[in-house]
């Protein structure tokens, strides 16, 4: 019996602002509990919300990037429910008239094929506070710092057919919001949260009952949670049961999903237009102003890297895989003026060290400027590529600038031809049997001599010069 999996995602992207969506409270992460909640955020009577002007162009940016209709007149609604982390008794959201309307599409690549995932809408809303359930027995503790933080909720069509597609879409959206500069994408701090709606059906049948997997903060766990939820649903249906529409939590330790079992009964949000907030009106001029500030997106960048720099599709895709990596590469390239050399170092030594130490590129201890000054020493023949890697490792450990390290460790490449000749003479004199073999036609011995000379020079001889001198001497 084959089942078709149907997945739609709701992504909450925290918009990068300094203050909240409707109040002048700070949204800085990690503050002392309840120090960033003012009277409005606390739901005190007599307070009126005023919309933060920074959120409007950010929402438009996303709309333009995915080719969606922009809601020229969008309206805030109240989503009514009682929960202690939302002291007003409702969440201010957009229901009937979202700021980003239908028509959005995001392309993902699955096994070499392009799949189009529809984006139903994206709307502005406020975040809730944080509930802490396990700190005080029998009680829930509330920190309202996060209440009122601006969110853009991006709702996809139920267009994904596997956990892998869902993750590919989520990653694409994650990359997009960061390229657009509208969200910092920090999943650990909750700036980018993914809720997955999962159901199964027989191909061609109407949609099955869905469950929602909430608040999973890593792509790996999203995939695992969806997988395990699909298995659970198939098992229930195949044994004659039916799926209950509910929110389920993913437990990574046990790799299982389980019902949230909230004490609240079935939701009935009774949306209605928020009388405290007037409609947001967007004009064509507003949209054009935002369009003029649209950054180059990953796809455009990748194409440019291929045509302008002659990089391979693979390299160009890797370098544009995140905005931060592309920015690093471009900063490096601006100094070195050598795209291939820069690309090789970013994808090679730098990426290796970043991955091994689990460091994000924007936090790299070796900045693009520092790496450029190292590559300059390759470009002026002070260092061979191999020794440069040694210097890079020292730079990573904070041992100083490339020139300081080269000086301190005596790593300068030997380019003095008489010194290289002397090294070559020594090697040839010490290996007379191999010289005879070479002269007797075993030309592959050449590599052996190069290796010996490089070893004798502790890797510091210029390989190009060693090759030249060896050829001249052996073929004399």
């Amino acid at each position, binding site marked *: 019996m084959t089942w078709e999996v149907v997945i739609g995602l709701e992504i909450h992207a925290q918009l990068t*602002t*300094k*203050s909240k969506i409707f*109040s*002048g*409270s*700070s949204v800085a992460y990690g503050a*002392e*509990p*309840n*120090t*960033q*909640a*003012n*009277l409005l955020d*606390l739901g005190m009577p007599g307070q009126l919300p*005023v*919309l*933060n*002007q*920074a959120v*409007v162009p950010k929402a438009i940016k996303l709309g333009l990037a995915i080719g969606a209709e922009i809601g020229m007149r969008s*309206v805030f609604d109240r989503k*009514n429910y*009682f*929960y*202690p982390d939302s002291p007003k*008794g409702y969440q201010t959201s957009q229901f*009937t*008239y979202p700021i980003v309307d239908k028509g959005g599409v995001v392309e993902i690549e699955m096994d070499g094929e392009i799949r189009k995932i529809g984006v139903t809408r994206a709307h502005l809303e406020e975040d809730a506070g944080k*509930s*802490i*359930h396990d*700190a*005080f027995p*029998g*009680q*829930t*503790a*509330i*920190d*309202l710092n996060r209440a009122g933080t601006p969110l853009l909720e991006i709702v996809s069509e139920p267009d994904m057919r596997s956990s892998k597609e869902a993750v590919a879409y989520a990653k694409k959206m994650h990359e997009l919001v960061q390229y657009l500069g509208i969200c910092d994408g920090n999943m650990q701090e909750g700036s980018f949260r993914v809720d997955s709606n999962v159901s199964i059906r027989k191909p061609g049948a109407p949609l099955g009952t869905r469950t929602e997997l909430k608040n999973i903060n890593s792509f790996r766990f999203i995939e695992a949670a969806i997988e395990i939820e699909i298995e659970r649903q198939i098992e229930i249906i195949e044994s004659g049961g039916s799926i209950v529409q509910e929110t389920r939590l993913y437990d990574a330790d046990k790799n299982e999903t389980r019902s*949230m*079992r*909230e*004490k*609240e*009964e079935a939701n*009935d949000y*009774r949306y209605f*237009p928020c*009388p405290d*907030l*007037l*409609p*947001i*009106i967007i004009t064509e001029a507003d949209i054009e102003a935002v369009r003029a500030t649209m950054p180059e997106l990953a796809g455009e960048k990748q194409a440019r890297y291929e045509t302008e720099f002659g990089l391979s599709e693979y390299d160009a895709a890797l370098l544009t895989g995140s905005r931060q990596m592309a920015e690093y590469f471009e900063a490096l390239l601006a100094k070195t003026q050598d795209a291939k050399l820069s690309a090789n170092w970013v994808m090679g030594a730098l990426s290796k060290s970043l991955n091994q130490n689990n460091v994000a590129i924007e936090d790299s201890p070796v900045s693009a400027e520092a790496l450029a000054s190292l590559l300059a020493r390759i470009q002026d023949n002070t260092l061979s590529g191999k020794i440069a890697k040694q210097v890079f490792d020292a730079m990573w450990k904070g041992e100083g600038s490339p020139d300081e390290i080269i000086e301190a460790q005596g790593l300068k490449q030997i380019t003095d031809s008489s010194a290289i000749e002397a090294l070559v003479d020594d090697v040839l004199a010490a290996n007379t049997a191999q010289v005879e073999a070479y002269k007797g036609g075993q030309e592959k011995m050449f590599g052996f001599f190069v290796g010996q000379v490089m070893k004798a020079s502790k890797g510091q001889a210029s390989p190009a010069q060693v090759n030249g001198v060896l050829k001249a001497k052996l073929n004399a």
Partner: protein
Amino acid sequence: MSDKTILGKHEVDTISRLAAISVAESEVEQVAEKLTSILDLFAQMEKVNTDGVAPMSHPLDQVQRLRPDVVTETSIREKVLKLAPSSEDNLFLVPQVID
């Protein structure tokens, strides 16, 4: 919505639960009558022909004012924690909301 909507105890219970307003058993009938009269008013309004009229969310012919993205507020934690029935470690405490 027909103009004969009459709310019963079940509807009153649901509405009072959603609104978190308790309605005493003795008041149910009276509340049901009042709510029914509100629904009647809406039913009356629904009879008005609105063909060609754009949905209106607000009666004011004005648009949303915006404020600059600037932090203007400072902590009022000490004052507001005092107002809470229960707090500890600078957190508000409420009855447990999850099993």
